[in-house]
């Protein structure tokens, strides 16, 4: 139910009355589409796993990339018809090593689950339709011959994999938020690992970073592309592909993305996730970690100074502050900082933010940060706000309430939680 596919986003409402001409065109388009759909269903129900059927699925998916059943049919066409070796390793249940779908899944990948082909065999003896019609166990030839036919199979599979990667690119560019295309592409990449020599598979995966970057140039916040990038990086780092860490280059990538657009929270988020590993792998000592934290503080503050209304920046600043005041339970940037240093840094940030008020006295997020961090400080020192802090909190909260009446319920709760008003029952709208 969280699937957005097929819903209308950002398309202007127009008159729903179609002209006779539009209606005629629709009827024509529908007839063509349904005819194609019928043909695909028929070919598959008759188990014709041929290049011709494959072509028909291409046409259908170009008309409708959301048609997930046809993406599945395409996978089956490759496994049972076009790839060189219908080995055990290519059955769906083992196709993704990250998924431990149990043995019962194998039964669910039998006839009953495949709709278009109501009787897909587990393919012990599929029709040979691939370019390389030979298999290694066909003859009892010499080792050279076996080697040669193995090479031919790999060439066949490599070509198919490249062709599929090429096929999905224009579809992704046209529908960058279509889950099915992204997941099909990952499945193809997984086939590369299973069917090709490691260096060749690795080269294919490396090129995917380029695609992820390209998609993120088109839309810097596309969470499909960010997720895809993290997945590709993880694979490239894995022993399966003979990989080593990419944390330095990925960290650099977030820096570049942020430079282009300070407001890109997706990049800030990824940065927050990469930092603990980055510092571990750099074998950063305590001094290096403290320097790193201060540089991050410096950088984000500079950005806030330019755009104090940008939520993305404050979220990242908040993340850095949590590194100071909430040092247990999760990896932090500088775990060895002394209590005194932490307090000094928190106070430094508060003072700097106060200075922002000289230029911006009506930006709600500044007041919100001042309230948050003053409370952080008190919590860290395990005491209540003192007299002057209390006075400041009251004045900042007054400002926030005026600037942001939308969230007045939240400010009322905060006021009570800070002990700035007399105790009254919490405003609960429901039993939680």
């Amino acid at each position: 139910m969280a699937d957005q596919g097929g819903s209308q986003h950002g398309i202007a409402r127009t008159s729903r009355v179609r002209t006779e001409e539009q209606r005629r065109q629709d009827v024509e388009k529908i007839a063509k589409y349904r005819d194609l759909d019928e043909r695909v269903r028929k070919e598959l129900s008759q188990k014709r796993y041929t290049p011709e059927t494959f072509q028909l699925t291409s046409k259908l998916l170009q008309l409708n990339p959301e048609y997930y059943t046809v993406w599945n049919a395409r996978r089956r066409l490759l496994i049972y018809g076009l790839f060189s070796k219908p080995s055990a390793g290519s059955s769906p249940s083992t196709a993704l090593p990250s998924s431990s779908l149990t043995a019962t899944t194998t039964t669910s990948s039998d006839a009953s689950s495949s709709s278009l082909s109501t009787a897909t065999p587990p393919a012990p003896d599929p029709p040979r339709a691939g370019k390389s019609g030979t298999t290694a166990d066909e003859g009892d030839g010499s080792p050279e011959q076996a080697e040669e036919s193995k090479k031919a199979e790999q060439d066949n599979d490599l070509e198919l994999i490249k062709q599929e990667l090429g096929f999905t690119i224009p579809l992704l560019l046209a529908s960058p938020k279509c889950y099915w295309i992204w997941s099909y592409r990952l499945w193809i990449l997984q086939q590369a690992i299973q069917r090709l020599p490691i260096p060749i598979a690795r080269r294919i995966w490396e090129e995917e970073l380029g695609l992820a970057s390209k998609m993120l140039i088109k839309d810097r916040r596309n969470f499909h592309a960010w997720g895809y990038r993290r997945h590709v990086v993880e694979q490239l780092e894995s022993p399966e592909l003979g990989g080593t860490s990419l944390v330095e280059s990925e960290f650099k990538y977030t820096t570049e993305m942020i430079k282009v657009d300070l407001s890109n929270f997706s990049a800030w988020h990824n940065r927050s996730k990469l930092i603990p590993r980055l510092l571990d792998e750099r074998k950063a000592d305590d001094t290096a970690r403290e320097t790193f934290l201060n540089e991050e503080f410096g950088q984000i503050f500079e950005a806030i100074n330019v755009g104090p209304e940008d939520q993305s920046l404050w979220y990242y600043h908040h993340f850095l502050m949590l590194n100071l005041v909430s040092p247990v339970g999760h990896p932090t940037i500088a775990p060895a900082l002394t209590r005194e240093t932490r307090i000094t840094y928190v106070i430094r940030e508060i003072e700097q933010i106060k200075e922002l008020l000289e230029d911006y006295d009506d930006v709600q997020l500044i007041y919100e940060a001042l309230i948050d961090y003053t409370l952080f400080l008190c919590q860290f020192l395990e005491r209540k706000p003192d007299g002057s802090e209390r006075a400041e909190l009251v004045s900042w909260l007054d400002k926030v309430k005026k600037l942001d009446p939308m969230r007045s319920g939240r400010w009322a709760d905060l006021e009570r939680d800070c002990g700035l008003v007399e105790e009254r029952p919490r405003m609960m709208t429901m039993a939680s």
Partner: protein
Amino acid sequence: MSSSNAGNRPEEVQLATSAHVKYIQSLDTRKDEYDYWLTEHLRLNGLYWGLTALHLLGHPEALPRAETIDFVLSCQHESGGFGAAPGHDAHMLSTVSAVQILAMLDAFDELEKRGRGSLGGRAQIGHYIANLQNRQTGTFAGDEWGEEDTRFLYGAFNALSLLGLLDLVDVDKAVKHIVACANFDGGYGVSPGAESHSGQIFTCVAALAIAGRKDLVDADRLGRWLSERQVPGGGLNGRPEKKEDVCYSWWVLSSLEMIGRTHWIDRDQLIGFILRCQDTEKGGISDRPGDMVDVWHTLFGITGLSLLEYPGLQPVDEVYCMPKSAVERVLSRYKK
């Protein structure tokens, strides 16, 4: 802070209930429109969206019950899973929709009689869903091809609990997986490491609610992030610095409701935004004012209004996205 003046808005538009009912009823009569065929992969989901909206609007009979049940059962495979339409492969998303529709229509007895597979009935569906759990990480795949996402985990919990079969899966492991998806801002992503996103927050918090583990949510931190999704104009966005969209009236608001922080946003302004997204003449609700309507945004506009206690609407369950009365009826069967 109350929604008492929600029904008293003489200057503004009211909810166009009868137009919306007609719009939803018309959805299956549009076979001469190309889009009808291009969206066949969402047919069962669409039926769930439309039916839920009709129930909340107080018109549960607006779609014929017997035909609806027949259609749902015609989408089932021997494996127990449901495809989006006859001839479409089984998938978690359509299977969850099927269970939700049958639950709303109080039709589990029909399922027991006519459901496919060797186990039949609820048990067969439970078997299908349970087999999609990744027993190592606890999360769920959408189908046999292995795509994993917290959407599928929530869907599994939703359907299994409605079927009374949650014990078929490793709930603790799934809960651990959700915890691994949490971020410093209190939100949750698609998978561990992914950015917080309101849609995924709904799936993670609702799954924790079904598992009885809402104690694991950092309610204050998450609540502030969620409340900051409201933008000038009253609508809610899904992530920082993004545009508002009616569907987040559901993802954000239901999450706030689950953690007891609905009063952290401006209800009246959100009501105003949703109402402005209506096509008051022909029915339906769109993502933003003036855009094309669709059944998906129509449902989430109405569920949002229901959570905001807009007058005349049936209360929606913030965890299941179904009428509260239906959820209570189904779940009460399994209470000892």
